């Protein structure tokens, strides 16, 4: 046990050197790190959001919202399909129980109607190996010449997957516009998106990510006032929308607008915050695509004098009157914005709308002040703990306590080095994990030393006692640490954010502990034995 081959010594020393090199970037200013030669590790330990401040936001794609929207547009498609010549008479078209259904008036036309609706089942592209295509909707027949289009289970699931992907893309574009450093945006489970962004203003971030930002322009129907439409029924093909809720200046006002939009956010090529010249009020200027500009030009030419509504997420932002044809393909949206409001809306419009609403289901934000305090507290605790543990080891084991302390320092260096190399995130519970590791790391040394003592008392020669002490303690150390490792791994599986950080440091701490206690301490002791040839059991 006390014999080391040269290559073993080399390996142990090499491991420690790598550990030291890996820790170095954390202790140097950034400019030095960049100046390091290419073969040296440059990664630093990533600080968790709880240490550097930032936001952890978990969103869920609102399945219900998506289904409602999709069914609404499907209703329009059905209407369109049945109205194309030769027209098919129908009644009772609408959304019922999560599907669109319609009754065909003339039984003679039923087959024709069926074929037309079958075209709307919308085959989705399957993956490369997926085999046959799945339809988004399933068409079924009911009694009394009823036709019904309903989401197919697989179709909806596939649709949701692509919606989550698209949403991630949109969210990424929006956050990139904000210029936050290193945000992480990833899928969580089936229909969730996790946004982790260090620093920045969490409220602004939430506003940007959580807004659907579906911009539409609708002509306002002036045949009926909004209040009237609310109390009775809006004319067919129109709907009632209210003004924006956050608008403190005016009470909510209803508008009757045409259901099908003139333009949508997709017709925009650019949006920028600016100021209106006369009033100096913040506005959002936009430019339209060529086809959007042509359509807008035609409509405004035909409807001079009529108001149109600019609608964001089903709320009317403003409803200006068309004074003259707008053919230039650009315009302004005003709506009592603040400067930041105009800026945020431009970002949203540039990045595009979310395909479905996102609901915030979990939020954890930490301000930069608390993060800095936590780091300071963690450092202080770590230093005090290290001093206390080191002192008690020296008090109890003397020279071998010094060996244990050298091993302990090596252990912490290796632990930090591995954390840097793996790019693991250090959280406040993670620091607690390191401090705990310090306390428990010496356990391995204690087990060995106590065993050496015992073997010495049993009458073995010092060298034999040391040798036996190491070998006998090993199985115990292994068993004891594997059990803790199991707990750490399961914690990692369960955990989110900070807890994961704890599990990671605990698990890595166990590995480095076994290494330092069993190989490094043994090497130190072996070198000492070789030099001193002790005549009494030294512990």
């Amino acid at each position: 046990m006390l014999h080391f081959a040269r290559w073993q010594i080399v390996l142990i020393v090499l491991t420690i050197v790598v550990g030291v090199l890996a820790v170095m970037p954390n202790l140097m200013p950034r400019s030095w790190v960049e100046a390091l030669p290419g073969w040296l590790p440059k990664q630093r330990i990533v600080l968790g959001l709880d240490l550097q401040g930032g936001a952890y936001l978990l969103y869920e794609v609102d399945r219900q919202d998506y289904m409602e929207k999709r069914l609404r547009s499907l209703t329009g498609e059905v209407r369109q399909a049945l109205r194309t010549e030769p027209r098919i008479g129908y009644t009772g078209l609408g959304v019922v129980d999560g599907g669109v259904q319609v009754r065909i008036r003339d039984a003679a036309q039923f087959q024709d109607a069926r074929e037309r609706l079958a075209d709307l089942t919308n085959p989705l592209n399957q993956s490369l190996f997926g085999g046959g295509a799945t339809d988004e909707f399933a068409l079924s027949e009911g009694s009394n010449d009823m036709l019904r289009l309903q989401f197919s289970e697989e179709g909806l699931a596939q649709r949701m997957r692509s919606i989550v992907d698209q949403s991630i893309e949109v969210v990424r574009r929006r956050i990139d516009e904000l210029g936050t450093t290193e945000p992480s945006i990833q899928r969580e489970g089936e229909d969730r998106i996790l946004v982790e962004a260090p620093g920045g203003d969490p409220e602004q971030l939430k506003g940007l990510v959580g807004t659907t930002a579906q911009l539409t322009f609708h002509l306002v129907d002036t045949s009926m006032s909004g209040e009237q439409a609310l109390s009775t029924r809006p004319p067919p093909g129109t709907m009632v929308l209210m003004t924006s809720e956050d608008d403190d200046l005016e009470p909510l006002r209803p508008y009757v607008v045409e259901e099908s939009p003139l333009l949508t956010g997709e017709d925009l090529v650019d949006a920028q915050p600016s100021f209106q010249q006369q009033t100096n009020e913040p506005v959002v200027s936009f430019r339209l695509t060529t086809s959007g500009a042509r359509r807008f030009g035609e409509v405004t030419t035909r409807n001079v004098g009529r108001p149109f509504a600019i609608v964001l997420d089903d709320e009317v932002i403003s409803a200006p009157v068309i004074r003259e044809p707008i053919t230039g393909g650009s315009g302004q949206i005003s709506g009592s914005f603040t400067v930041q409001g105009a800026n945020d809306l431009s970002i949203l419009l540039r990045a595009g709308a979310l395909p479905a609403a996102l609901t915030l289901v979990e939020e954890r934000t930490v301000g930069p002040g608390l993060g800095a305090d936590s780091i300071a507290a963690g450092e202080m605790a770590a230093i005090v703990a290290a001093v206390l543990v080191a002192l008690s080891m020296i008090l109890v084991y003397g020279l071998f306590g010094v060996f244990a302390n050298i091993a302990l320092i090596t252990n912490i260096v290796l632990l930090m080095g591995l954390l840097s190399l793996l790019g693991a995130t250090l959280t406040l519970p993670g620091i607690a994990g390191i401090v705990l590791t310090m306390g428990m790391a010496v356990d391995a040394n204690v087990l060995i030393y106590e065993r050496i003592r015992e073997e010495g008392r049993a009458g073995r020669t010092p060298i034999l006692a040391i040798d036996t002490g190491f070998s006998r303690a090993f199985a115990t150390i292994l068993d004891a640490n594997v059990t803790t490792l199991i707990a750490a791994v399961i914690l990692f599986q369960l955990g989110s954010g900070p807890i994961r950080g704890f599990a990671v440091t605990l698990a890595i701490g166990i590995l480095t502990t076994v290494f330092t206690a069993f190989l490094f301490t043994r090497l130190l002791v072996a070198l000492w034995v070789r030099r001193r040839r002790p005549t009494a059991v030294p512990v």
Partner: protein
Amino acid sequence: MKLLSLPSDTSIPFMRYRVAAVGTSLVLCVVSIVLFLVVGMNYGIDFRGGTMVELRFEEPVNIGQLRSDVGDLNLGDVQIVEFGDPTDVMIRIEEQPGGEAAQQRGIILLRDLFGEMADFRRVEVVGPRVSGELARAGAIAVIVSLLAIMAYIWLRFEWHFAVGAVLTTLHDVILTIGLFSATQIEFNLTSIAAVLTIVGYSLNDTVVVYDRVRENLRRYKRMTMPHLLDLSINQMLSRTLMTSITTLLALIALFIFGGEVIRSFTFAMIWGIVVGTFSSIFIAAPLLITLGLRPGRVSASDKDDAGSGGGETETQPA
């Protein structure tokens, strides 16, 4: 060379007190379970849903005034406590009715109220669905880890040891839950981490003692169980104490200097170390007697403690 020495070569008759020790433990366990059932735990928002905000005001605050201000917001059950400093408060708001989308209400109202005069150092909002999932995941984690550890010990030892280790660990978990119920310290995800770490530590301790028991069972085939257990515990006593002391020192440093955020975590850990150390001596060992383990039952061929395998190295000169 050494300034302090730990007790060595002791022969404390631990097993003589085993009835008293196990009895006390049983009573404490029952008390813990009753507390858990009657008083219940103070679950944090991780498991119950709701909003938690940590605020730092510019000046020391009057908590009574804050309570009435926040009470006027009609947010249901609200808890407000000082958090470390007189300028710092923690506000906890229960889950708002109306599903996931309604949960932002509390934080919006609080920002309206305090946005000007306080720094929002920490904000956590957990919706009803996530809190349900976290609670389930937490419970599963504790159970799965107990099973996994039992499986590992079963592989390495006789079944008596596996069952004994799990019962001992269960004892520690129950007492830790008792602590949370008795003190009403918030029980959240971090507490689950604390419980699992206690599980790991307590097992570590138990395994070390069991390891020695197994070794002694092979060596002293004719010793009575209580004697053999006393011998094993005494042999390991200085180690058990030393490790507990160093771990406790580290934890006390964390408790004092580590800040308010992890204080409840450290507090639970300190309790866990004390309980775990106690149980590895007074619960784990007697359980082996109760479970019917006898000297001579462990044969050399049976699940040997492989690894470094004691014997061979003795013949090898250093």
